[in-house]
């Protein structure tokens, strides 16, 4: 029995900010002070506040320490663990109010969150199946196997209104019922953990923080559709997630929660991991299954849908990690509980990965229908440096931008599509006034061009041409005719590409065109980039009336483009200037501007 538990985040975010060293430091310090028998150190999954990592929580007090450094550990042990005095200077500042310590759940970041898919992340040790079991782990599987028929399971999922969290939003129960309706025989359950959208990391965090929930849910799906084998397709770029999944599968097998005759009910189910090699297209369901089969990951036309003819030509259910993470709770708490959250057509909660120009970079889970404003301004803590919100990008390369005028729409599948974006897997990149929307569209197209598998022409050649047009615009060489061409090509690709990725690839262009057409026109007609991003359209100038002739800019210019005499206004030679902006940073008088 331990009187105190120290939870140290072992997610990818905190691991890269050094949480392993924190754990080692705690273990060393606890050994030195003879507390090893009293205090337990536990490595958990992601707490969500990645911007403030490494994160350490000490129970029973629930003290939430952020940005902890190895040098701080002796103080935490000496003060908090020996003398019982919480080290206030290291507490997450939001949890300290009027010199009193608040519960973490009362902070702006957490109080609007409802954690269903992430409920165990940052709470349990993901490498210990016992901790998962302590939080009712595998009880849903037990309930399904002993009390419910496969039909009842599917009906519960249908009633819950759960829709696919990978982005498409197809009702999960319907998918399962199609696969279940196929004749008996070999069927498969697959998990899509090939999270490839730039800026999305919720699936990674679930796998790292709570791998057993996915295993349990896949076994439930197996029971529901009559499958005895499952595959988790996870990208090799997630080494921590892969390792924890392997450990989790091993432990589940050892306990008899995977394998033959699970819980003595006669139900057999086992799982294997397949690693993706980093191709974005393998997140598309047909390409993913082709890749599991051992072929080159390329999509194929649908129908036939995977539920009819999927992996190895057999009926297959393929769901995303976050979708699975909801299943055990729905089984245990009932469909009505899940339906009580969310909007009319989007039930439950959604995890968003907040990134970009925002204070609290990290992972948040909110009920569907929460407004973008609540997510960005309240939970996310707003935009740093007093800048203005310009747009939020959702859905990655398949999604679009949401401008400030739509900040108050309740976020759900249908509302986002209605305004020209999409839920996607839940990446949410916030952009401020310094972001150029043409440049953003170009960034996503560059990604799609790189990642296009090349099987169909509209995507392989079309996205390349789209990129070239955008490049032309950002360089100030485009005409208004090019803008028309750009738009036409977008619709052409949308209608003709083979798979979902190609069909949605033009979305970043279309949505920025819809809301920020004036920026495109400014690039084309005025040859200006309003946000001051596109280098070809910028000149860096010294304002003669403000320049004091201190020479600091000239001394720092890497290309020697600045000349002038001491105490006289300097000038920049536009031919030599590479617009790196160093002089602007160095000038103490605000005399250098980008125009």
């Amino acid at each position, binding site marked *: *029995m*331990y*009187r*105190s*538990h120290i*939870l140290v985040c072992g997610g990818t975010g905190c691991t890269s900010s050094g949480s392993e060293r924190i754990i080692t430091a705690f273990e060393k310090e606890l050994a030195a002070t003879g507390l090893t*028998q*009293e205090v337990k150190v536990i490595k958990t999954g992601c707490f969500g506040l990645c911007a403030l990592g490494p994160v350490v929580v000490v*129970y*029973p*007090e*629930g003290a939430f320490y952020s940005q902890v450094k190895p040098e701080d550990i002796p103080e935490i042990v000496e003060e908090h*663990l*020996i*003398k*019982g*005095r919480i080290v206030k200077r290291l507490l997450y500042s939001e949890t300290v109010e009027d010199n009193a310590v608040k*519960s973490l*759940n009362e902070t702006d970041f957490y109080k609007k969150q409802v954690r269903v898919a992430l409920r165990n992340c940052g*709470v*349990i040790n993901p490498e210990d199946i*016992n*901790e998962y*079991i*302590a*939080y*009712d*782990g*595998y*009880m849903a599987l*037990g309930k399904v*196997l*002993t009390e419910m028929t496969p039909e009842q399971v599917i009906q519960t999922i249908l009633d819950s209104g759960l829709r696919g969290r990978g982005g498409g939003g197809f009702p999960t129960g319907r998918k399962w019922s199609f696969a279940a309706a196929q004749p008996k025989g070999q069927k498969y359950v697959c998990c899509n953990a090939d999270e490839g959208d730039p800026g999305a990391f919720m699936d990674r965090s679930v796998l790292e923080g709570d791998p057993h929930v996915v295993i349990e849910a896949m076994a439930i799906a197996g029971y529901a559709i009559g499958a005895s084998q499952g595959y988790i397709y996870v990208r090799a770029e997630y080494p921590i997630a892969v390792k924890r999944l392997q450990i989790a599968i091993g432990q589940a097998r050892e*306990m*008899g*929660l995977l394998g033959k005759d699970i*819980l*003595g009910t006669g139900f057999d189910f086992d799982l294997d991991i397949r690693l993706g090699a980093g191709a974005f297209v393998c997140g598309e369901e047909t390409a993913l299954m082709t890749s599991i089969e051992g072929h080159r990951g390329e999509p194929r036309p649908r129908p036939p849908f995977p539920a009819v003819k999927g992996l190895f030509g057999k009926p297959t259910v393929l769901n995303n990690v976050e979708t699975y993470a909801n299943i055990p709770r729905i089984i245990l708490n009932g469909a009505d509980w899940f339906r009580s959250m969310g909007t009319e057509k989007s039930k439950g909660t959604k995890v968003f990965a907040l990134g970009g120009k925002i204070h609290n970079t990290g992972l948040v889970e909110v009920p569907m229908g929460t407004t973008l404003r609540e997510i960005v301004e309240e939970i996310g803590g707003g935009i740093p440096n007093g800048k203005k919100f310009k747009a939020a990008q959702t859905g990655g390369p398949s999604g679009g931008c949401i401008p400030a005028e739509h900040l108050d729409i309740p976020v759900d599948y249908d509302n986002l599509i209605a305004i020209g974006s999409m839920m996607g897997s839940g990446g949410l990149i916030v952009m401020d006034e310094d972001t150029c929307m043409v440049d953003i569209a170009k960034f996503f197209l560059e990604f799609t061009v790189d990642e296009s598998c090349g099987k169909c022409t509209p995507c392989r050649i079309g996205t390349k041409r789209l990129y070239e047009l955008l490049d032309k615009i950002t360089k100030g060489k485009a005409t208004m005719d090019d803008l028309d061409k750009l738009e036409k090509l977008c619709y052409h690709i949308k209608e003709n590409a083979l798979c979902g990725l190609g069909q949605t690839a033009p979305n970043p262009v279309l949505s920025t065109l819809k809301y920020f057409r004036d920026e495109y026109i400014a690039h084309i007609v005025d040859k200006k980039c309003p946000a001051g991003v596109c280098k070809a359209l910028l000149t860096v100038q010294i304002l003669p009336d403000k320049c004091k002739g201190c020479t600091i800019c000239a001394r720092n210019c890497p290309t020697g483009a600045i000349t002038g005499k001491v105490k006289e206004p300097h000038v920049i030679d536009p031919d030599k200037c590479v617009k790196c902006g160093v002089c602007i940073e160095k000038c103490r008088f605000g005399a250098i501007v980008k125009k």
Partner: protein
Amino acid sequence: MKSLAELQALRDQMKNKIGIRHDSDTNIRVVVGMATCGIAAGARPVLQAFTEEVAKRNLTHVSVQQTGCIGICQYEPVVEVYAPDQEKVTYVKVTPEMVPTIVTNHIVNGTPVTEYTIGASGK
């Protein structure tokens, strides 16, 4: 694991081990004074005795914590018990031998052990 009952038994057993990771208003807090004075007077074995006793009885709603000096150093080791809707009870000059009685009578059955409290000690 061969049955659901086995899984449930394991869950109940494991639940006890993670009980302290919940903030709950219904928890009883046992707070041991662990400043220099407390430690010098032998607070550590007392703290350990409480942790062991609480574990032995599977009291998941009880958390054992430490605090600093509350200013009555001559009475250390001092242990305060905070139960919801009850006034705080302060035990003084606590020894590990007294711990099982405090846990049984006070924490489990709700009757403070008057003879160990600060009120009794002055008399």
